[in-house]
């Protein structure tokens, strides 16, 4: 398969099944970053000489690429951050801290990533708003009906992962947003696990705020995006103040801040990260997002069929649609399984996957997680299955 040649790390015999944590990088992304550092490594927004002009052009062109990629209305709605976590913290502490009042309710679920829980907990301590959990159904999914049941006159915001990082279920965001807006409730979504895996259209979903990270979509680490509808972002208080975000200020303390998006991007930005993210979007567009979704689903279906034939494997999420499979070897602690697979050059993640409250829903605290991306193959799955079948020898391998 030609796609695999695009990823230098795949030239080794590595089998990488931890794409939920981060994805591998294609040569075009690596080259774009090297090109920036080698040939035009000036600062942004200082366009007095040609290489700085080039930085500005590439930086703002990438912002527009992101806008098109998620179908936002305008580039002012795209803020570069260091990743989903920073984006979510900005949403909570830059916007909702001033929007919510004491006693207002925030709806989450127990399968959220910690970055979509802990900021809300902290906000609760600050201003007295209250976190409530939408119950999951017996397959670990969010249903519109369960959202309906939890809504009351105090509910002001619903914040959900688009795809959860352990269960792997795709949330019905469009329906949830429609329902929420009927009750004047805002909707925040963490798209970390969906971006680059399926079409994410903020206009179609009518989402109010969204966060994602570049490194989970073939881009570099340290770059991410905060999306918000302009009217809300414009009310967001910057978390950082300094260069690049002010228009003017004077000794008496009068300050005028820049308009969006620059007001929310204080300091020298992660230019190399933005350049790399732009190259990642170009790359994904060349493969085609619908192709990516299709390949992942085929891989998942193939893997589930094979895994279900192994007696000593328990799969916890057979009913979801994304490329995420949570499993354990019977009677083996998940970390020992991961160490065993590592001995065969297979990378999976063991643990609670930053979703520490999920133990109540899953009835197990720790799992191994396989998360596919389009460069994985059926041959890799065959190898995984073969190694797991030999799992009775696990302690001979790891001890």
């Amino acid at each position: 398969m030609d796609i695999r040649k695009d990823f230098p790390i795949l030239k080794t015999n590595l089998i990488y099944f931890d794409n939920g944590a981060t994805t591998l990088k294609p040569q075009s992304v690596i080259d774009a970053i090297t090109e920036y550092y080698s040939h035009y490594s000036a600062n942004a927004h200082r366009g007095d000489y040609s290489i700085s002009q080039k930085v500005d052009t590439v930086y703002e062109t990438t912002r527009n690429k992101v806008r098109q990629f998620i179908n936002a209305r305008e580039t002012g709605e795209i803020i570069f951050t260091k990743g989903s976590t920073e984006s979510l913290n900005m949403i909570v502490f830059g916007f909702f801290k001033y929007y919510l009042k004491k006693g207002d309710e925030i709806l989450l679920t127990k399968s959220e990533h910690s970055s979509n829980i802990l900021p809300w907990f902290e906000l609760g301590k600050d201003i007295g708003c209250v976190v409530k959990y939408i119950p999951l159904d017996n397959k670990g999914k969010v249903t519109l009906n369960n959202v309906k049941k939890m809504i009351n006159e105090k509910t002001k915001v619903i914040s959900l992962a688009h795809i959860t990082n352990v269960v792997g279920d795709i949330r019905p965001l469009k329906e949830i947003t429609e329902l929420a807006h009927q009750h004047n409730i805002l909707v925040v979504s963490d798209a970390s696990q969906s971006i680059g895996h399926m079409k994410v259209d903020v206009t179609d979903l009518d989402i109010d705020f969204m966060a994602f990270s570049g490194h989970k979509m073939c881009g570099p680490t340290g770059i991410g995006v905060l999306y918000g509808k302009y009217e809300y972002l414009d009310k967001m208080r910057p978390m950082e103040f300094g260069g690049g975000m002010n228009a003017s200020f004077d000794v008496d303390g009068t300050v005028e801040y820049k308009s969006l998006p620059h007001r929310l991007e204080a300091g020298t930005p992660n230019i190399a990260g933005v350049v790399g993210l732009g190259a990642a979007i170009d790359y994904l567009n060349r493969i085609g997002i619908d192709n990516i979704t299709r390949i992942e689903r085929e891989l998942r279906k193939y893997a589930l069929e094979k895994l279900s034939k192994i007696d000593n494997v328990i799969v916890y999420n057979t009913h979801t649609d994304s490329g995420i499979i949570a499993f354990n070897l019977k009677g083996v602690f998940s970390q020992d399984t991961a160490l065993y697979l590592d001995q065969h050059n297979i990378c999976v993640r063991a643990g609670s996957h930053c979703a520490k409250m999920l133990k109540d829903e899953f009835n197990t605290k720790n799992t191994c997680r396989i998360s596919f991306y389009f460069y994985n193959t059926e041959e890799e799955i065959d190898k995984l299955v073969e190694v797991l079948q030999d799992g009775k020898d696990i302690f001979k391998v790891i001890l």
Partner: protein
Amino acid sequence: MDQNLKRTIILEHYQHPAGKGLIDDDTYKRADMNIESCIDEIHMMAKVEDNVIKDIRFDGEACAISTATTSIMINQLKGKTVAEAKKIIENYNNMIYEKEYDKELLGEAIVFDEIYKQPNRIKCATLAWDCIKKIIG
């Protein structure tokens, strides 16, 4: 020691750990440990009377090495004075961190004498020993 024998000892303790399960008894002192970089966590309780460790119990979710070393440690330290226990703990840590150590003091804990070759397992091998230190001081 032969690798097969080591493996047998580790597995025996992993599958049938000594002191497994906490009890409701106020005369025990408790401590909890987890590893920030991985997922092992243990809860431990120990009863110290007249400066002697009468009993140690634990619970939690952890990997084979972490569980096995907890069990071996409990067998080693039960019935020892606090001072003797501290010496054994120090000696164990010396082995783990490649310093001079006395094999005679270690008992079955000697099965971990080559764990330094796997740096990512050192925390698994020291979790229980750090936890008991929190209890006996």
